[in-house]
C-alpha cells in the first residue's frame, strides 16, 4: 500500500495534482464554512458553470484557460452576490438562470467549433493530467493568497457570516467582506475546476463544511475540522483514483460523501449515548 503511494508520487503529474489539489481543497473547505452558513451554497455551483462556459470560450479562442476564466468568474461572483442580496429575480432562481445559461453557451461555443471532445469531457468531469508546471506555480500562489486572506480576516468573516446587520451597525464594512468572499470563492473554483471538473468542484465547498457541522459546535472547530476533513478526503480520493484507475474528481467527492455519513453516524451515536446516560442516571 505504502509502496503504491510512493509510486504514485513518482509521477510528476501526480505530484503536481497533489500540491494543487491539497491547496484548493483547503481553500474551498474554509470558504465553504461561511458560504454554507450564509445560505450561499449554490453560488459555488453557479460559478463553476460560469467557469465551464469561460473555459469553453477560451478553448475556442485559443486563450489561456486560467487567465481568461479568473476575471469572468469573479465578475459572475459579484453579480450572483448582488442577486442574492436584493433583486427582482429571487436569489436561487437568479443563480440557476446564470449557471444554466453559461453552461448552454459553453456547449454551443464548443459545438460550433470542435464538437464534444476529450477537452470538454475533462472540463466537465475533471482530469489531473491537464496541469502544466506553470499552472501549478500560478495555482500555488493564488491558493496561498486565498488561505492568507482567510486567516487574516477570520474574525471579520465570522462576524459578517453570523450577523450581517450587527456587523454593519458596529462599523464593519460588510459589503467589502462579502465581496472578498466572492472573489476568493471565484479564484478557488477556477483553480480547482480543471482537476475536479465543473460539475463537481462545488462539492469541495459544500461537503466538508456540512460534514463538520454535524459534530462541531463552535465556529473555530467547524473551520479547523472542515479543513482537515477536506484534506483527508482529497488524499483518500486521489490515492483511490490512482490505485483503482477511477476518475479523480469523482473519487474525491465519493470520499467526501463517506465522511459525511460517518459524521452523521457519529452524531447519532453521541445522541444515543447521551440519552442512555440520562435515562440511566
Amino acid at each position, binding site marked *: 500500500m505504502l509502496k503504491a503511494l510512493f509510486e504514485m508520487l513518482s509521477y510528476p503529474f501526480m505530484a503536481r495534482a497533489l500540491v494543487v489539489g491539497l491547496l484548493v481543497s483547503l481553500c474551498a473547505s474554509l470558504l465553504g464554512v461561511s458560504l454554507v*452558513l*450564509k*445560505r450561499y451554497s449554490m453560488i459555488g455551483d453557479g460559478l463553476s458553470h460560469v467557469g465551464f462556459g469561460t473555459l469553453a470560450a477560451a478553448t475556442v479562442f485559443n486563450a489561456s484557460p486560467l487567465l481568461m476564466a479568473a476575471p469572468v468568474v469573479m465578475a459572475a461572483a459579484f453579480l450572483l452576490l448582488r442577486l442574492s442580496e436584493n433583486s427582482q429575480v429571487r436569489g436561487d432562481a437568479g443563480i440557476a438562470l446564470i449557471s444554466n445559461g453559461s453552461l448552454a453557451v459553453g456547449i454551443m461555443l464548443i459545438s460550433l467549433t470542435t464538437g464534444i471532445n476529450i477537452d470538454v469531457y475533462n472540463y466537465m468531469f475533471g482530469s489531473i493530467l491537464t496541469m502544466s508546471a506553470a499552472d501549478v506555480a500560478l495555482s500555488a500562489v493564488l491558493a496561498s493568497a486565498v488561505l492568507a486572506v482567510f486567516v*487574516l*480576516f477570520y*474574525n*471579520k468573516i*465570522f*462576524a459578517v457570516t*453570523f*450577523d450581517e*446587520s*450587527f*456587523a*454593519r*451597525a*458596529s*462599523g*464593519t464594512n460588510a459589503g467589502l467582506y462579502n465581496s472578498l468572499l466572492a472573489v476568493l470563492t471565484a479564484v478557488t473554483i477556477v483553480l480547482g475546476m480543471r482537476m475536479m471538473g465543473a460539475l463537481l468542484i462545488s462539492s469541495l465547498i459544500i461537503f466538508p463544511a456540512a460534514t463538520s*457541522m454535524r459534530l*462541531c*459546535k*463552535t*465556529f*473555530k*472547530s*467547524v473551520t479547523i475540522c472542515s479543513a482537515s476533513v477536506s484534506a483527508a478526503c482529497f488524499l483518500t480520493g486521489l490515492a483511490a483514483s490512482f490505485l483503482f484507475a477511477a476518475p479523480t474528481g469523482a473519487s474525491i467527492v465519493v470520499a467526501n460523501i463517506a465522511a459525511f455519513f460517518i459524521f452523521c453516524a457519529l452524531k447519532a451515536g453521541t445522541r444515543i449515548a447521551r440519552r442512555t446516560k440520562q435515562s440511566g442516571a
Partner: protein
Amino acid sequence: MVILRCRDASFAYDGNEVLSGLNFEINSGDYLCVVGENGSGKSTLIKGLLRLKPPCAGEVSVSGVAAGEVGYLPQQTAAQKDFPASAREVVLSGRLGARGILAFYTKADKSVCDENMRRLGVYDLRGSCFRELSGGQQRRVLLARALCAAKKLLILDEPAAGLDPAASRELYLIIEKLNRQDKMTIIMVSHDISGALQYSSHILHLNNSRLLYFGKTAGYAGSAAGAGLVGRRPDA
C-alpha cells in the same frame, strides 16, 4: 445632553417614502420605546438611527457617539438558529467595531467580553453552542455582544420577540438596570405595549409613515395616540 436628533427626516425605498417629517430629540440617559403597527416604518427608523440608511430629506445627527460605539440588538435571523458558534465567539464579535481592518482580538477585548458576559449572567455558558441555548439565553448573549460595542447608546429591535413571559420580564429588568445604573441610553422597538409603558421614559409612536406621538411615557396614555393602544382597544 442631546445624543440624537432628527430634523424633518424622511426615509424612502426606491422613491417611496416610508417615513416622513420626523422631528424628535433623544437625550443621554433616555429610555425610548418605538411602537406602531407592522409596516409603520419602525425598522426603517432603526436603520436610519444606526446610520445604515441615509435620510432622503432632512437630517439625523448623532453627537458624542462614534459609528462603532452603538450597541445594536437586531432581530434574530433564520441562519442563526443552526449556527455553530460558541457563546463567547458571538460576544467577542461585538468588539470588532473597535478593531481596524486586520481584526485580531487583544487581551483587553477578551476581558471586556468576559465582563459583559458576567454582567448578563451568561459567563458560565461561554463555551456552550449558541444554537443549543434557550431563547432567553440567546437574547442575553446577543445583548452582551451589543454591550461590547456600546459606550452610551443601545438600540434594540424587538428584544423580547418570541420569548415566554418570564424570560421577557427578565430581559426587561436587565435593560432597565442598564438604563438606570449604567446610564445607558436605550432605544427599543417593541410590540409589547404594556412592557413599553412600564419601563420606558419616552414613547415614539409611528403610524402610516408619520410620527403620531413623541414625548414622555407618562403623557402617552392620555394622548389621542395612546388611547387607541392602551387599554381601550375594542378587542382587548
